[in-house]
């Protein structure tokens, strides 16, 4: 199996990255802070003002190592890629499949809803006794209704729009009780519905940042497997949107991002002072908090789970790669359907 390669995050303002031999060298104020052989890293994420030497940019592109630039708020700015590679026949198959995406969308939506349901069930199992009775029954009701949506998604014919509708309905149900999974009493850490661009509270700021990290990994997985990250199935094509990367991400969101956000808050690894409010109400993570989140994110990616379909134990960080690979096999005709990823 492919090795899970590490990601280097550079968050120090004014840090410089350069190439030395086959090494990447990170410097802050002229002092060497890290020296890494290029074959050990899968991608480099630079946050804010980070200087990258032209020689290093070239070496990263040649080595197929993604270089992603995020702004200080953690929003995506740019991505440096080498020449388009991979199999043109595979990409053509992907475009054709995107015209008739129903079965792939069905797989993705099933797995997403099932994984959202699993997150709620897990919370009930782990600390259901601590819930107030009416909140507990609200979460139980959401679990029940998600199960009904799942059955509908699996058996009802009706085209992609019906599936998209089911996905939206499930998301509403799920986020309506998401606040109940937060176990710290702090009023500043409550979740009142999803907001983005900009996130208007701490929980949304954290979710948005984690989704950005996950999108970046899914996009890299799509490209590494020769798929076009922009041509999606569940997500409609839109200029500049990595629709396929977003598709790939849907089934992983509840487990990789939402659960991690909950752990960070519930274990009090993040608190109110890790967030700052900007003009206009946008809430952002502070620099120090971003490091906490990145560390937790990297650790989470190393946790291993058995993959139900390939029946192998793989680190969570490789799941986007495995899913992209399985989809590629389906598009090539080696698999009858796309087997999505279910969290157990």
């Amino acid at each position, binding site marked *: 199996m492919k090795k899970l390669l590490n990601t280097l995050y550079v*968050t120090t303002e004014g840090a410089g990255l350069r190439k030395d031999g086959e090494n990447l060298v*990170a410097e802050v104020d002229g002092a060497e802070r890290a020296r890494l*052989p290029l*074959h*050990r*890293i899968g991608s480099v994420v630079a946050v804010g003002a980070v200087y990258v030497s032209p020689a290093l940019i070239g070496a990263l592109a040649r080595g197929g190592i993604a270089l992603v630039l995020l702004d200080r708020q953690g929003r995506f700015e740019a991505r440096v890629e080498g020449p388009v590679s991979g199999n043109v026949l595979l990409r053509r198959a992907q475009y054709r499949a995107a015209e008739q995406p129903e079965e792939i969308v069905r797989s993705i939506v099933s797995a997403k809803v099932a994984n959202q349901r699993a997150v709620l069930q897990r919370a009930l199992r782990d600390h259901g006794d601590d819930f107030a009775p009416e909140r507990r029954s609200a979460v139980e009701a959401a679990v029940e209704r998600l199960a009904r949506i799942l059955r509908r998604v699996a058996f009802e014919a009706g085209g992609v729009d019906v599936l998209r509708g089911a996905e939206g309905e499930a998301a509403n149900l799920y986020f309506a009780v998401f606040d109940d999974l937060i176990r710290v009493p702090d009023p500043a850490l409550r979740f009142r519905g999803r907001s983005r661009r900009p996130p208007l509270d701490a929980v949304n700021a954290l979710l948005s940042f984690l989704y950005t990290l996950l999108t970046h990994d899914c996009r890299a997985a799509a490209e590494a497997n020769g798929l076009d990250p922009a041509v999606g199935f569940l997500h409609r094509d839109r200029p500049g949107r990595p629709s396929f990367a977003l598709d790939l991400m849907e089934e992983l969101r509840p487990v990789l991002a939402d659960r991690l956000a909950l752990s960070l808050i519930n274990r009090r690894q993040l608190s109110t002072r890790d967030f700052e409010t900007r003009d206009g109400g946008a809430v952002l993570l502070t620099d120090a908090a971003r490091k906490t989140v990145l560390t937790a994110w*990297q650790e989470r990616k190393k946790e291993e789970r058995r993959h139900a379909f390939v029946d192998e134990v793989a680190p969570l960080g490789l799941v986007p790669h495995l899913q992209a690979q399985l989809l590629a096999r389906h598009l090539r005709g080696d698999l009858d359907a796309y087997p999505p990823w279910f969290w157990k």
Partner: protein
Amino acid sequence: MLVLVTYDVRTSDAGGTKRLRRVAKACRDYGQRVQYSVFEIEVDPAQWAALRARLEAVIDPAHDSLRYYHLGANGQRRVEHVGAKPNLDLDGPLIV
């Protein structure tokens, strides 16, 4: 797999310093220097073959020596460090 590479290059004869520099550079391209002539190198078998060929083309077998310690796929577990110069864990979170 993790390989520990150590070397001794005789620098007293002509060309010795040049060989020493080249050996060090080859090791540094693939791994991490943990002590002066000691490198920990995490490679796949193909990369190992390439590095090995490069090293053995540089040294003068009459005067220099290389030692490879194969620590296997879980090699990190077999390594303990005591004292100064703690090195960077390349598999841990990398945040600068």
